[in-house]
C-alpha cells in the first residue's frame, strides 16, 4: 500500500520532468552508442561497420526513446483534455441531438434527485430536535401480542412518569384533542388547532426557550391556560409581548396565555399546531381509557434496549396494580422509526418509480447515442486504421457520454429544486417532516452519483459496440447505411424492448402506488359495508 503511494508520487515527479528526461535519455543513448563503436573500432572494424554494429546491438533508438518518454509521462491526462475538447466540438456540431439528450437526462436526474431529497429529509435525516436519538415513543400493548400498539392510559402514564428511571423526561399529549377551537378576536373567528399536553412536554422535546412561565404540574387538571405557537402569535397578535398573561377567548372560554413557543418549534406527531393546553391528567383515571400519546427522552447513556427492559419490569408491577387492563405491557420505540413507519413504503415506491423514469430516459438516450454512433462508423474506422487503439476509441465515446450526463445533471439539479417546491406544496398533509425537504450535501452527492451512473448506463454499450466493428469492414461499406450493421440493429431492438418493458413496469407501478395511497386514505368504518343491503 505504502509502496504504491510512494511509487505514485515518484511517478508524478517523473512526469513533471518528462521533457528534460527525454533529452537526457537522448544524450545517454549517444554516449552508449559511442562507447560501443569505440570498442568495435578497437577490435579492428572500419568506422562505418562499427557504427552499424553498435546500432544493431543497441536496438531501435527512436522506439526506445518513445517508450521511455511514455513511461515517464502521464499519457492519459494529456489524452483526456484532448478527448474533452473533441467531445465539446462534436456536441456543438449536432445541437439538436445534444439538446434532446440533455433535456431527457435532466428530467430523469431531476426527478430522481427531487424524490431522493424527500426520502433523505423524511426517512434518513435525524429529527429536528436536540439529541433526537434520545427521543422514544411509548406504547401499551397486549402482553401476548407484541405487534399491537395502543395509546397510554392516564394511570399507566403517571406511573411511568413517577417510576421509570430510564427517562429524563416523559410527556403525554391527548391523542384526540387536535380537533381545534375557535379563536375569536376583533370580531372574526379562526379555527385553531390545539393540542392538550402534560407539563413536561416542552422540556422533553427541548423545544428551545419558551417566552413566559409555561405550564406546571399543578395545571394538569385542565386549567384554562394556553401556550401560543410563534406563528399564531406573529400573525394574530402582531408579535405583541404583552399578550403573555393576558386572557384570550377560545370557543367562548377564557384562557390565560402563559407562554409563546420558540420560533420554528413543531410537534413531532401533529403538524401545524397553533397552541398547547394543559392536559387534564387528574381527570383521566380509567385504566382502560387508552387515549394518550406518550413521548419520552432517554437519559444520557441509556439506550432503547435498556429502557425496554426497565419498562418490562415496570409492566409487571402495573399489571398487579391494575389487573383489569388488558393491554398491560409498556414498550418504547425510537421516535423517528415510529414516525416514518407509514410513509416509508409509499416513499420508497415513489423513489423506485422515478428511478424507473430515469432508466427509461437512459434507454432513450442510449438509443439516440447509438443512432448517432452509426453515422460515425466511418470516422471511427479511419481513426482506428490510423492507429487509435480500441481502448482509446471507447474512452473518447465515454468522455462524450460523461460530458452529456454532466450537463444533464446540472440542468437536472435545477429541475429538482423546482420539483422539491412542488412536492412540498402537494404532500404537506400526508407526509410528516415534509417542510424539512431541501438540498443538502447528501442530496448533492446523490445527484452526482446518479449522473455518473447514468453516463455509464447509456454510454458503455454503444461505445463497445462501435469499437468492435473491424475497420476494414466499415471502410469497405462506402455508403453510410442508415441502419448500420446487423448487430447494431439487434441492439436497437433490444433497447426498444427494454424501453417498452420499463414503461409497462412504470405504469403498473404507478397503478399499485395509486391503489396503495387510496387504501391509506380510506378510513376503516368499523363494519363490513359490503355485506349491508340496500333497499328502495
Amino acid at each position, binding site marked *: 500500500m505504502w509502496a504504491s503511494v510512494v511509487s505514485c508520487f*515518484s511517478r508524478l515527479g517523473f512526469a513533471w520532468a518528462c521533457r528534460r528526461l527525454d533529452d537526457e535519455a537522448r544524450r*545517454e543513448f549517444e*554516449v552508449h552508442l*559511442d*562507447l*560501443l563503436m569505440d570498442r568495435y573500432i578497437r577490435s579492428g572494424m572500419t568506422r562505418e561497420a562499427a557504427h552499424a554494429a553498435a546500432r544493431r546491438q543497441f*536496438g531501435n533508438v527512436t522506439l526506445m526513446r518513445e517508450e521511455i518518454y511514455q513511461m515517464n509521462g502521464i499519457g492519459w491526462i494529456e489524452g483526456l483534455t484532448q478527448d474533452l475538447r473533441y467531445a465539446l466540438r462534436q456536441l456543438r456540431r449536432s445541437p439538436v441531438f445534444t439538446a434532446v439528450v440533455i433535456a431527457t437526462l435532466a428530467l430523469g436526474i431531476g426527478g430522481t434527485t427531487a424524490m431522493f431529497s424527500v426520502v433523505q429529509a423524511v426517512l434518513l435525516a435525524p429529527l429536528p430536535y436536540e439529541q433526537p436519538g434520545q427521543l422514544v415513543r411509548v406504547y401499551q400493548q397486549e402482553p401476548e401480542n407484541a405487534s399491537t400498539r395502543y395509546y397510554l392510559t392516564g394511570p399507566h402514564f403517571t406511573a411511568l412518569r413517577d417510576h421509570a428511571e430510564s427517562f429524563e423526561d416523559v410527556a403525554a399529549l391527548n391523542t384526540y384533542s387536535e380537533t381545534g377551537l375557535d379563536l375569536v378576536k376583533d370580531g372574526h373567528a379562526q379555527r385553531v388547532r390545539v393540542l392538550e399536553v402534560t407539563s413536561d412536554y416542552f422540556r422533553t422535546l427541548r423545544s428551545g426557550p419558551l417566552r413566559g412561565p409555561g405550564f406546571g404540574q399543578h395545571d394538569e387538571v385542565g386549567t384554562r391556560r394556553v401556550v401560543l405557537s410563534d406563528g399564531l402569535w406573529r400573525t394574530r397578535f402582531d408579535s405583541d409581548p404583552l399578550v403573555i398573561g393576558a386572557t384570550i377567548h377560545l370557543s367562548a372560554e377564557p384562557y390565560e396565555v402563559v407562554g409563546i413557543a420558540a420560533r420554528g418549534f413543531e410537534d413531532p406527531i401533529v403538524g401545524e399546531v397553533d397552541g398547547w393546553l394543559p392536559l387534564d391528567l387528574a381527570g383521566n383515571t380509567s385504566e382502560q381509557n387508552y387515549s394518550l400519546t406518550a413521548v419520552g427522552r432517554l437519559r444520557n447513556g441509556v439506550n432503547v434496549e435498556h429502557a425496554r427492559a426497565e419498562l418490562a419490569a415496570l409492566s409487571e408491577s402495573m399489571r398487579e396494580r391494575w389487573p383489569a387492563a388488558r393491554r398491560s405491557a409498556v414498550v418504547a420505540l425510537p421516535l423517528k422509526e415510529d414516525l416514518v413507519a407509514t410513509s416509508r413504503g409509499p416513499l420508497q415506491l415513489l423513489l423506485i418509480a422515478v428511478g424507473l423514469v430515469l432508466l427509461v430516459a437512459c434507454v432513450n438516450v442510449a438509443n439516440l447515442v447509438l443512432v448517432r454512433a452509426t453515422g460515425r462508423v466511418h470516422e471511427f474506422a479511419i481513426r482506428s486504421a490510423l492507429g487509435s487503439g480500441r481502448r482509446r476509441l471507447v474512452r473518447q465515446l465515454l468522455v462524450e457520454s460523461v460530458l452529456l450526463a454532466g450537463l444533464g445533471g446540472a440542468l437536472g439539479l435545477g429541475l429538482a429544486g423546482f420539483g422539491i417546491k412542488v412536492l412540498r406544496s402537494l404532500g404537506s398533509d400526508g407526509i410528516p417532516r415534509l417542510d424539512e425537504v431541501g438540498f443538502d450535501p447528501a442530496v448533492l452527492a446523490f445527484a452526482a452519483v446518479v449522473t455518473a451512473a447514468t453516463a455509464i448506463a447509456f454510454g458503455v454499450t454503444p461505445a463497445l459496440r462501435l469499437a468492435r466493428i473491424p475497420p476494414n469492414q466499415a471502410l469497405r461499406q462506402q455508403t453510410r447505411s442508415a441502419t448500420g450493421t446487423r448487430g447494431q440493429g439487434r441492439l436497437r431492438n433490444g433497447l426498444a424492448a427494454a424501453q417498452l418493458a420499463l414503461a409497462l413496469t412504470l405504469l403498473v407501478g404507478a397503478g399499485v402506488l395509486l391503489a396503495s395511497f387510496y387504501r391509506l386514505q380510506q378510513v376503516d368504518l368499523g363494519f363490513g359495508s359490503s355485506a349491508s343491503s340496500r333497499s328502495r
Partner: protein
Amino acid sequence: MDVLQGTLDLMVLQTLESMGSLHGYGIARRIEQISNDLLKLNEGTVYASLTRLQHQRWISASWGASENNRKAKFYAITKAGRRQLATETANWERIAGIIARLLRTAGQP
C-alpha cells in the same frame, strides 16, 4: 538466448548491488560478461529497465564522467532497492528450485 520478461530488472539490480555505481553501458557490459556472451539483449532495453527501477525508487541516478570523458548518468542501488533485491532473489531461487525439481521428475512415470 532471450531474456525472460521481468528478469532484466532483477539482473540490473543485482549488477548495481555487486558493482556499485555504473552507467547504462557498464551495466550492459557486465551482464554480457557474466553470461559469457550467451545472453544477447538489445542494450536499449536496459534503459527501459532503469526507468522502471527509478520509478520504484529502487535505484538513484547522478551525473558523472564516462571512460571517454563524456557526461554520463550513473546509477546506484538504494536501500529500498536492496530490500527488493533480497525479496526477489529469494523468490527467484524458490521458483527456480521448483522448476528444476519439476523438470527432473518429468521423464519419470
